[in-house]
């Protein structure tokens, strides 16, 4: 009998069950991302064209006359989108806004098609065993600044759509040509390069995520921490793609939800302690961190 199986038997005898849940949440997340990308993006295009089903579209390349505008279009040309909407479309928009209050940036972690694209790039990088880059403190100030500049560009519609890297990257995946714009292609390439070398790099400067992040403090979904159980191993902050240090530093306040958090739940996957980190919905715990034996 191998050492591993012997250990399993002794653990079973002592009543301890082995909990192998490493990356279990990540697998669920990827599955949801794939499903949502096809249903809410491509599915909306297909169903919206062939039948009277209108669903919110999260990819501007697939916005047609029969589907509800993407979130960014709604933000930049909100009134136009509103005046064009009728019946079920308005209902869907209200549902979308309501869900923002209820679920917050879960949109980023679970529903964003570009998030899936970034995760695929990270998966390829890991397979090729290329070491990622880590952005230092000075770099973090630069991207924080860039993030707010992009938010202003998006809200005031200053050249955002013509240079939006997501458009140039996602259009070809939908079989469409985004139009020739050298600057657009170069920016898209730079974003791809960064996303390849750094996990969820675009999320650091995503203007939509920043706007949604403002609601993160008020949403029903929260990340809670039980400070007394924390062993200060830094596992949560080490795996965080958004470099959120507060989740490790905060000891007294149980609410560690950060405006930048994209709810990728990697911190909860990584936490080796029982019920120290948890995701709550209206105060009720949904997912807990678990001790690995």
């Amino acid at each position: 009998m191998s050492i591993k199986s012997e250990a399993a038997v002794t653990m079973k005898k002592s009543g301890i069950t082995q909990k192998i849940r490493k990356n279990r949440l990540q697998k669920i997340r990827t599955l949801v991302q794939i499903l949502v990308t096809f249903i809410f993006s491509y599915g909306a295009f297909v169903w919206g064209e062939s039948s009277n089903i209108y669903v919110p579209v999260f990819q501007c390349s697939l916005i047609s006359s029969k589907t509800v505008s993407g979130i960014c279009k709604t933000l930049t040309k909100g009134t136009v989108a509103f005046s064009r909407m009728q019946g079920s479309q308005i209902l869907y928009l209200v549902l979308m806004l309501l869900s923002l209050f209820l679920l917050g940036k879960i949109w980023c972690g679970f529903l964003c098609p570009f998030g899936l694209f970034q995760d695929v790039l990270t998966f390829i990088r890991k397979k090729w065993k290329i070491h990622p880059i880590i952005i230092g403190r000075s770099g973090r100030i630069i991207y924080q600044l860039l993030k707010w500049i992009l938010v202003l560009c998006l809200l005031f519609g200053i050249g955002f759509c013509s240079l939006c890297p997501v458009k140039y990257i996602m259009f070809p995946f939908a079989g469409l040509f985004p139009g020739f714009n050298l600057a657009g292609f170069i920016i898209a390439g730079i974003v791809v390069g960064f996303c390849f070398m750094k996990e969820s790099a675009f999320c650091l400067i995503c203007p939509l995520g920043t706007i949604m992040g403002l609601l993160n403090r008020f949403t029903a979904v929260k990340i809670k921490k039980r400070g007394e159980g924390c062993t200060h191993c830094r596992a949560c902050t080490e795996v965080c793609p958004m470099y959120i240090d507060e989740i490790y530093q905060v000891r007294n306040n149980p609410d560690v939800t950060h405006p930048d958090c994209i709810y990728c739940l990697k911190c909860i996957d990584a936490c080796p302690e029982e019920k120290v980190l948890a995701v709550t919905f209206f105060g009720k715990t949904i997912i807990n961190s678990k001790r690995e034996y």
Partner: protein
Amino acid sequence: MGRKGIRKIILVGILLGSLWIASFVVSAGNGTSNSNNVQNALEESAGKTETNHKSKETSSEADSKEVILSLVAIAGVGGAVAVLLSIMYKIYLAKKVNAMPVLYLKQKETTFDEHKK
């Protein structure tokens, strides 16, 4: 979540809703610009669908070539950026690691070997 939290959520919701309605009312006040905007949007969407149909009808090889070329261009630039980033990061790391005692020891070892020879 306590009552205060729920109150906050409701308050923010009302605020955002009123902002949304206010922006709609303001744009409705500017009747011409709004109608122009709507027209533009409708034209835009019509144009989009037309172009979509055209592209579907023709669905030429040129289109697919353009799509593939754009993907290749983005991947090319992305690859170049990734290589540049990894080189830059390695240089940055090397500068940082130089001060570490491991390298210092290694240097000592080599000098010791050289000395032995």
